[in-house]
Each structure stands twice: as structure tokens, then as C-alpha cells.
């Protein structure tokens, strides 16, 4: 696989120039490493913007859209992020494969939970905690998707 795009909330976890959810940061960094095992390129806007130190609010729309165009697989943690939802709109419209991480305690719009009607979507459900088990599932799922 050439490129994986990680789509996840940004602004809700940023206060000024600080990233305020360390558990989420650790998970995302580990997810980034897992993705790197399977793709020569991994895009994560949080990394580009140094977890809030170099926010690119005025240019991120064009930059993220360009990144999406060359993506083979999107790994998305939508939570309640409208930015991630826009990215899922791009990905599904471009028929890019999506690996969707959904919290079983959260209610999602059918336009997110039903994206499988539009493009190739695999869903991994987690119970509130993004932990090592979730990472293992993602690892296995990407491995499977790479072979398809």
C-alpha cells in the first residue's frame, strides 16, 4: 500500500498551542507507527501541525484535500469531529477504502455509519477506550486490506 491517511479530531483537543489529551496523543502516535508498517507514506494532520504548535487553520483545507487525492486507505476516528466528517465525505466520494473506528457508546449519523453503501468500509467498534486491543485489530485489518 502506498499511502494511509489518518483522519481524527484536532481542534477539540487543542487549547492555545497545547494538546490537552495525552492518552489520545499516545494512541494516535502508536496508530501512526502501525500504519507505517503497511504503507510507505502516512498522513496525519496532527503531526504536520505538531499537535497544536503549528496550526494551519487557513491552509489546511486545500492541503488535506490534496493529501486525500493520493490516499489508498483512510483510517478514521470520527468521534464528533466535523472536520473528520468532511474528510470521510471526500474519501467516500473518491471511492477510497475506509477503516472506521466507532465508539459503541456513541450514536452516529447514518451518513457516517452507513458509508459502506458508497465505498469499501470496514468498521472496528471499541468500547470507549482506544487501547492496545484496538491497535491490534487495526493492524490485522490493514494487513487484510493490503492483500485485497
Amino acid at each position, binding site marked *: 500500500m502506498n499511502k494511509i491517511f489518518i483522519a481524527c479530531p484536532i481542534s477539540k483537543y487543542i487549547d492555545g498551542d497545547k494538546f490537552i489529551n495525552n492518552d489520545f496523543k499516545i494512541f494516535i502516535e502508536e496508530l501512526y507507527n502501525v500504519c507505517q508498517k503497511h504503507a510507505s507514506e502516512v498522513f496525519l494532520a496532527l503531526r504536520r501541525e505538531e499537535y497544536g504548535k503549528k496550526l494551519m487553520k*487557513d491552509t489546511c483545507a486545500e492541503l488535506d*484535500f490534496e493529501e486525500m487525492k493520493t490516499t489508498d486507505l483512510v483510517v478514521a476516528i470520527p468521534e464528533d469531529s466535523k472536520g473528520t*466528517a468532511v474528510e470521510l*465525505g*471526500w*474519501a467516500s*466520494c473518491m471511492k477510497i477504502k475506509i477503516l472506521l473506528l466507532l465508539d459503541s457508546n456513541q450514536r452516529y449519523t447514518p*451518513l457516517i455509519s452507513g458509508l459502506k*453503501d458508497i465505498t469499501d468500509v470496514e468498521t472496528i467498534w471499541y468500547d470507549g477506550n482506544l487501547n492496545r486491543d484496538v491497535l491490534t485489530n487495526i493492524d490485522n485489518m490493514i494487513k487484510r486490506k493490503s492483500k485485497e
Partner: protein
Amino acid sequence: MNKIFIACPFIKFINGTDFINNDFRQFTEELYDLCAKYASKVFLALKREDYGAKPLQSYSCSMDLDEAKSADLVIAIPDDSMGVAVELGWMSAMQKPVILVLNKNQTYTSLIYNINKITPGKVIFYENEEKKSLPDIIKVLEYYKKLMDGDEK
């Protein structure tokens, strides 16, 4: 202009089969009627489902995407809706004009606020009540009608 797609919050205003925000209902009905003057078809999911009274027997995302594909432009009231954000992703990926109707007092994610950096369109701001945006929406529809249909109006 052939078709206008109206994207707006849905689930947050539905309780059972009731639509619980009458002001918003009135606004979307006025907006629908307005759009019908400028395009031969108007898509509004709320209208398709009679504002919650007639939920679809079976729903597929692809139904909405198909409506989006055949639209010439979208008028979007994103509010805090995840569904509208997905639809804005579709529309911008297809390079359709997006008319964003934004509340001056609300904060929006950059990917919504700056959607017109990747697809054509206009931004209309309103204060407090959505219906205050209608005069500006008329101006923008006039512009796109001329652009798309030439002088044949």
C-alpha cells in the same frame, strides 16, 4: 439551473416522528420555496421524509449521494451536524458550488469554514435567526442562475 441540494441538520430536530424546532422548519420551507423559483428540482431530505412524520422504510447513504451528484449547487446550513459535514465533503470533492450559511456567533471547523478554498461558492453570515440569511441567499441564487443559465431567465 437544474437542481439545488439543501443540506441541513436533521436528526437533532427529530423526536420520534415529531419535528421539534418550528422556527427552523419554517426557515427550511421558505428556503425550499425560494430555491424552487431558481431550479426545476430541489432536494431537501427533511421534505422527503415529511419532517420526521414519514421515515423511509429503508435508507441508504447512496440515495443522498445520488441526489448530490445530480445537483448543480448546494446550500448548506452546517450548524453542528456531522451529516451536513459529510455532504460538504461530497460536494467539495465533486467541485460543486457550495453556499455556506453560517451563524456569526458559532465556531466552525476550518475544513467547513474554508470549504470554498477547494470548491467554488459563497459564504453568507446571519445573526441569531437563520431566516435573516434569506435576502443574501436570493442575491447568491441570482448570481448562480445568471452564471449557469446565461440570460435566459
